[in-house]
């Protein structure tokens, strides 16, 4: 019996399987955080997560929700600043980087700035953020994308992060980026893709469960290299899904496949007739499933005792 999983869970699992142990990886918000957490639990226990604003080697006991928050340096070996981190990458010490984008071209060039023209954009996107630095300075960048024709385009509207530039060696010889660095994999909801060694054009490597080559081609807005042998990505295992849902994101902050434990802060009138402020978890139906803390007692049980109706 195959386990059920969401497209997000599939992406996380495929990404988690790409790491090599005892290396470092730039971790951005969202899927990379879950993938790194999963990889550390199941495959690469010594993977060192690096967060751009300074956290290095967090033990990831709690899933971060932002790249600068305390969870990114919780029990870390080093809490630095952004320059020191970016320079560590510039020196060549960060192996992996993860990037998302609104558009990607055949050479892995990315756009996260605008759709349309820069001066009169149809859609203003968030901008480079650390993306360009990650894509420029890490050895291997892994790009996470929704596989759609409007996203896999012949030419990006704005080149935010250089991939293999105009193909071949031009990333190094023309753009001037560090030798040997560049896009490694593109992981989508349909497939895992790579790049041709010579031309550096994108090529299909392995199909996601139940996806056909035709489907991938149809959803790609440029000519994709299709090798004779195309692999198949094994679906998420029960183990992968269990760890992901129960150990990594039990709160359902990123995953929608769990009951959810959504933080809320409420006020009740306590047994002493004074107001009590209480942090609780609600499930997706809005029901309170746990009391976490309150302002006038030290333990959840004591909080509960003060407001038994919670």
């Amino acid at each position: 019996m195959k386990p059920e999983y969401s497209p997000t869970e599939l992406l996380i699992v495929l990404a988690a399987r790409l790491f090599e142990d005892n290396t470092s990886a730039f971790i951005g918000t969202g899927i990379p955080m879950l993938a790194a957490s999963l990889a550390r639990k199941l495959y690469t226990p010594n993977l060192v997560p690096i967060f751009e604003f300074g956290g290095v080697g967090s033990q990831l006991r709690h899933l971060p929700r932002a790249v600068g928050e305390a969870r990114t340096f919780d029990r870390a070996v080093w809490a630095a600043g952004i320059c020191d981190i970016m320079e560590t990458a510039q020196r060549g010490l960060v192996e992996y980087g993860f990037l998302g984008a609104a558009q990607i071209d055949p050479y892995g060039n990315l756009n996260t700035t605008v759709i349309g023209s820069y001066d009169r954009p149809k859609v203003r996107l968030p901008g480079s953020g650390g993306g360009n630095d990650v894509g420029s300075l890490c050895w291997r960048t892994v790009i996470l994308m929704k596989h759609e024709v409007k996203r896999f385009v012949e030419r990006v509207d704005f080149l935010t992060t250089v991939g293999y530039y105009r193909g071949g060696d031009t990333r190094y010889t023309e753009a001037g980026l560090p030798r040997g660095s560049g896009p490694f994999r593109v992981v989508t909801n349909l497939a895992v893709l790579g790049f041709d060694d010579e031309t550096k054009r994108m090529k299909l490597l392995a199909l996601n469960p139940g996806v056909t080559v035709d489907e991938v081609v149809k959803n790609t807005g440029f000519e994709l290299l299709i090798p004779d042998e195309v692999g198949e990505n094994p679906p998420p295992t029960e183990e992968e899904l269990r760890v992901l849902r129960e150990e990594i994101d039990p709160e359902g902050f990123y995953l929608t496949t769990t009951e959810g434990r959504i933080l809320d802060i409420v006020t009740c009138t306590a047994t002493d007739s004074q107001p009590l402020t209480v942090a609780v978890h609600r499930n997706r139906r809005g029901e309170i499933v746990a009391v976490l803390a309150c302002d006038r007692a030290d333990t959840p049980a004591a909080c509960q005792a003060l407001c038994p109706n919670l």
Partner: protein
Amino acid sequence: MQHELFGSPDVEAFRQWLRENKSFELKEKLMSEQEAISRFVHDGDYIGFELYATVRCPMSLVRELVRQGKRNLGVLGQGLQEVDFLLAAGLVNRMDLTYVGYEVYGLSPILRRVVEQGRVKTAEWSNGAIAWRLKAAAMGVPFIPVRSMLGSDMLKTNGAHVMKDPYTGTQVVLLPAIVLDVGFIHVHRADPYGNAQIDGISGFAVELARASKRLIISAEEIVDPEEIRRYPERTVIPYFLVDAVVHAPFGSHPGEMAYLYDRDEPHLRMYMEMIRTEEGTQQYLEEYVYGPKTHEEYIEKVGGWGRMKVLSKLGVKR
């Protein structure tokens, strides 16, 4: 696309300015948000914040800045609430932009509206580039060479030069230094003179503090100078860089403060819901920014000290 630099790379003028305006006198600089903003921020200033809105960000200063309605501001960098408030209030006319968005919550509807309507001039940089531009100013040199941004279209929007280095022929971008008229930083503790300490990551506080003509810091706690002198290696910002010290406990709310309190997730969810529309955005500003006249009134408005106490029980501890 344009090539004008919004912020100044003129480190020679910066030298003169610092000599004439900064003092090594050990004088107390404690003041309210109101006084700090009205004394040290002016219409047209080019400003920058550290770190960002859900992490150690001087939000009580940002709200006061919006309240006082300083106009025609230039803004450096990435941002969430701290930049979006200013954009939504129509106070910004130029921006060196790296990222405006809400991470897991997605794009910023405010940035989209403002930029898509052409209401602000922008130039594009990476996060690293922004921090390195501050670093160049902090070093007192007009530029800094880096290997980021090479080949990207961002160079067409921001006027940065590219060269081959004379020693090895390596290609580098020469990022222009950027001197801020006013910098804003929130810290864990400071003494009344402005000597400041930060726990956990330092973000780009070191660089921004040194790249600012005027520097306003807010602090969770005001400590005795003897505490500073006992561990001088923990000073991240020395007092002579600082013009104003504002005591702002929970000053990063609705963001977090490492080891002290967690971010206010329910408040952020409500905020994200409200800013979907222009009307909701203005309503949020009315209720939470213009409405409360002080940081204390803001804290009351968002749930009072009891809620703050609860948040302080939720974050990561040492």
